[in-house]
């Protein structure tokens, strides 16, 4: 322990330096979280009538809420699988001693720097059944034209999301791959393991922490997707891409029902937090066995 006077002085300095942060996080994180929970128990246009768990029982029984939640989960699953398969595939390719590695890495990362507004608008144009350039290209190749946003809307916006984000997961996997010591692979080579074997028995298990991190991040961002539904499909056709946050946004700002939308926010938050904790725990257990 330090002498009391000194530690007392430094404690004061610490708190002095921390004051803006404490005020900021109280006002813009903890107060809003308290408010969203408080509002979730209220109803009416001013959200001033107490309804207890009314919003929650209503939300859990509401087919529209259930539907939007289920498709949001489906969307996240698509994004996670795509992120892992494509991100890992590209990272494995770029982990080889190839010329132009840096250039490829840069090119693949570019869409990650664009706003969801750009991505949404651009792909809405490209995918348009009448004036979209993609159908034009398919026609030139002698392939049938597609109504992407009508036949497979959820899959299509998931693919667009992957187009934007795969460079990011690729970089994470590349970092993970570079953390695996060369000697492991060399030893396995001497023991006669072929490339396929080395991938399954060495690379993949040692990448487990990276894979876990990538999947947690992809699920969390997938469950919060908004711009894709807002810009590309406006939730449609019908309610096919009515993703949860888009649904909450509409209930709050178009239907002006803050109580009901707050309850849905809290429910989605609970799912996200529970999911994150389970995954992180599973990850910790997984690491022990390797």
């Amino acid at each position, binding site marked *: 322990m330090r002498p009391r006077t000194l530690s007392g002085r430094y404690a004061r*300095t610490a708190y002095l330096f921390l004051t803006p942060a404490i005020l900021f996080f109280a006002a813009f994180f903890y107060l*809003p979280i308290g408010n969203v929970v408080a509002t979730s128990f209220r109803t009416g246009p001013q959200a001033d009538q107490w309804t207890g768990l009314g919003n929650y029982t209503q939300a859990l029984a509401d087919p529209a809420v259930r539907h939007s939640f289920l498709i949001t989960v489906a969307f996240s699953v698509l994004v996670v699988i795509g992120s892992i398969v494509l991100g890992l595939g590209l990272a494995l390719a770029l982990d080889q001693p190839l010329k132009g590695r840096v250039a490829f890495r840069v090119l*693949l990362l570019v869409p990650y720097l664009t706003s969801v507004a750009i991505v949404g608008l651009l792909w809405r144009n490209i995918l348009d059944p009448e004036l979209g350039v993609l159908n034009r290209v398919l026609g030139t190749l002698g392939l049938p034209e597609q109504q992407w946003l009508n036949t497979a809307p959820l899959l299509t916006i998931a693919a667009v999301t992957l187009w934007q984000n795969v460079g990011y997961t690729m970089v994470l996997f590349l970092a993970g791959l570079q953390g695996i010591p060369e000697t492991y692979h060399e030893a396995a080579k001497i023991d006669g393991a072929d490339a396929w074997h080395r991938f399954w028995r060495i690379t993949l298990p040692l990448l487990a922490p990276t894979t876990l991190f990538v999947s947690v991040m992809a699920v969390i961002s997938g469950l919060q997707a908004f711009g894709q539904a807002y810009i590309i499909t406006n939730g449609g056709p019908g309610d096919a891409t009515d993703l949860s946050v888009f649904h909450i946004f509409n209930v709050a700002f178009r239907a002006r029902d803050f109580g009901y939308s707050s309850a849905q926010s809290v429910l989605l938050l609970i799912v996200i937090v529970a999911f994150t904790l389970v995954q992180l725990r599973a990850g910790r257990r997984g690491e022990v066995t390797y």
Partner: protein
Amino acid sequence: MRKALLYTLLVLASVITIVPLLYMLSLSLQTEAETLSADAVLVPDSPQWGNYAELFTRAPFGNFIVNSLVVAGAITLAHLVFDPLVGYVFAKFRFPLRNTLFVALLATLMVPFFVRMIPLYVLMANMGWLNTYQGLITPFLMDAFGIFLMRQFIQPIPDDLINAARIDGASELRIYRSVILPQTRPALAVLGLFTFVFQWNEFLWPLVATTTPEMRTIPVGLTLFNQEYFTLWHLTAAGSVILFVPTAVLFLFTQRYFVRGIALTGLR
């Protein structure tokens, strides 16, 4: 043989990522008729550079640009001021409730933005801060990610350096400014870069917190083009190019930091 396959794969992937962005550039230089042609023009007959000027006459696009610069710039500056300071405190000071406060800070990482969206909207409406810069800026002045990044970076700086400065009679603020801050430059570069790019591209909060066209940022302004002005693709694309170019240029010069930043922190 195997190499050829790898190159094919990588070239194909790069084409898929880059060609749509080149198409955006092409769209931005087409006439309105070309953008609406069922034959999907790939290369415009004669580039319509005037589209970029038209942006400013058909919408308050100058406002969009200024708003984006002010908002993303102010938030980035705030992060660069606050995140290292708070990170320093958690890295080098012992004080009552230190661990509790640190856990409370990290817990905010688990709170996605949509959870704060409705109460923040109500708060801003009550304060009369909708359609104002302070309304767009204040919810993002600091974040736990940046603080955590800075703490990790400051922790290895030897305590002796700080104590020596104390013995020399330097004030605590002076120690922070002259001893700690100069050593954190690479981390500050990464932090500033990420903060600016993400805030520049931010969509949901500016959409919620602004209703007048004059207060929109570029990303939200772009979608206005689509709804209120009925899908003017040549202008939408031109606006997208203007939104994209600054981040692309910034990235070209800093891509090494960028890649390392993602790899180190997983920053999103």
